[in-house]
């Protein structure tokens, strides 16, 4: 293989990786900043993909119209999900309830659309062909769009958290509920809003995924694990690190696809378990935190 092919592979890997970074951002924020375990998060990505599909193919909406509808809808879904089902602070309760939500979403989608995989865009996506180092770079326009959208959304999101009133209040509330309520803020509403915002990110990720990958009722499991993987490599709640970790995972994933496509998932998830178990950065139960709990 020559330089051009390798460059193509790396560019495509990075673009896929930016998508993974985007997928993990919502989860990372929910876990790291809001202290919420959301195991329905892959399922919501999957449902978002199907809503896009339904909007564009059944209701004849243009993508530019379907996306805002989905984003607004998801904000309220997130808000009310937190306000009704996820009030408990017990992580096990959150895991069980969100698993239940995932089960409901998946089975309803399976019932409505069946197990047959679908794809949002037909045909081969348009590409740029650029002569480079004695070969030709083949770069999908969609990939570049994905990269741009992911970076913009992630930069925008972290700016939002650092600079705006709501973003700062969310961080304050999670760190100290009592203080926040003294400031005249209802901490519950703020956390609900934060959860809603994380769902906006989920919606955007769902849109970007649906443009590139097939839609299946079980697709959520895969993106959920990818999201976990990226978060674990980056450290939970670390949004910027999440983007870089996403790029890394994207590269590994692309390489795995080229050299051992059938073992792609196995390689990724074994890597996941190994990192989780042996890299202390990803593991938050350090000796120090144990001693603090005693």
């Amino acid at each position, binding site marked *: 293989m020559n330089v051009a092919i390798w460059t193509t592979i790396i560019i495509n890997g990075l673009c896929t990786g930016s998508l993974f970074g985007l997928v993990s951002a919502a989860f990372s924020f929910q876990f790291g900043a809001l202290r919420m375990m959301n195991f329905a998060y892959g399922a919501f990505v999957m449902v978002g993909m199907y809503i896009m599909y339904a909007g564009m193919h059944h209701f004849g909406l243009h993508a530019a119209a379907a996306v805002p509808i989905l984003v607004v809808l998801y904000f309220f879904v997130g808000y009310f999900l937190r306000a009704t089902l996820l009030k408990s602070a017990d*992580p096990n309760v959150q*895991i069980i309830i969100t698993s239940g939500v995932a*089960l409901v979403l998946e*089975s309803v989608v399976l019932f409505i659309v069946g197990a047959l995989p679908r794809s949002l865009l037909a045909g081969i996506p348009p590409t740029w062909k650029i002569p480079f180092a004695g070969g030709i770079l083949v770069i999908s326009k969609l990939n570049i769009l994905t990269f741009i959208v992911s970076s913009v959304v992630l930069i925008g999101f972290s700016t939002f958290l650092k600079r705006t009133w709501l973003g700062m209040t969310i961080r304050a509330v999670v760190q100290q509920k009592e203080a926040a309520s003294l400031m005249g803020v209802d901490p519950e509403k703020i956390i609900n809003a934060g959860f809603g915002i994380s769902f906006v990110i989920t919606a955007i990720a769902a849109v970007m995924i649906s443009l590139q990958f097939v839609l299946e009722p079980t697709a959520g499991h895969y993106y959920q694990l990818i999201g976990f993987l990226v978060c674990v490599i980056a450290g939970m709640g670390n949004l910027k690190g999440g983007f870089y970790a996403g790029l890394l995972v994207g590269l590994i994933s692309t390489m795995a696809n080229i050299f051992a496509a059938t073992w792609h998932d*196995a390689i990724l998830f*074994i890597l*996941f378990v190994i990192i*989780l178990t042996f890299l202390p950065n990803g593991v938050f139960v350090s000796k120090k935190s144990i001693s603090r*709990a005693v």
Partner: protein
Amino acid sequence: MQNAKTEWIGDWITPKNILVCVLIVPVLLIPFFYKGGAALLPMHLVIMVASYIVLAQTWNILSGLTGMFSLGHATFYGLGGYALAVAMVKLKLNPLVGLAAGIVLSAFFGLLLGAISSRLTGFFFTISTIALAQVIRTIAMQWTPVTNSITGLKIFRPIVGRVYFFYAAIAMAVAVSIFFAYLRRSRMGSMFVAIRENIHLARSLGVDVVKYKTVSSVIAAMIASVVGSFITYYIQVVDPNYLSPIISEKIIMVTIIGGMGYAWGPIFGSVLILLEEFIRGTLGARYAPLASTLYGIILIVFMLFKPNGIVSINLKRSFAMAIRALTPQKEK
């Protein structure tokens, strides 16, 4: 001071236990009530329910007692199934060899899980179980020469009357449930629960946490593997669906809705497994996914309102409340 042995047999004879035992008797007589082919479906349902009781009891040991919340329990079930099928189909061995191989294989993965749990707790342990389950599932789907990919393996066995499977499944469910109840009251059970309740205090009281976590996951893995082999031998086919997250979720649902950490939990909860067959039978296979929808909804409702499951519902108090609600109140 009472003799310890009589004391705990005495503890077992409670009105609730007797009532449930009496209710189980008609189930045992199913093969005699129905004649010929009519008995096949009810027997099949009982076999499935009984095997879910066993699976749920093993998850109950791992997660209910020891507090290691696993979302990948189907792995052990699938390993048992595949070990049996591979031994029979590919290696032409006796099914018992396959059963034993499944147990050994699962025990190994139980050890692995124990090793992981010594480094990871809580949420991080849970996601590592999901990832491991996914790895095993991918191997089952991709290692075509051995596992035959998504088609799975079809095994051929001598014809055995379903009634044998029926009684074997019930015997297994009863035995494992009694084992669970015994374990809960044994020294080891106390160690498990101590780890779940307060790992630091358990350590400082001399409990070897890593050892007991590992023992717990190995026990759970080995028994779950036996169920996998049993069901594979019964249904005569194994495919990657055995390793599907849906199976893990069903196991968890059965235990949590019944009551996590109690021997009766999986027994009460497993009745829900009938729901799927009921929907399939009355509305048709097209509507079968809706069973999972109902599972999800029931799980959420229980988690919100009765987090300790059916076991925690106080019948006496519920009756008293119902009677109070029904009797006309005098106005003051």
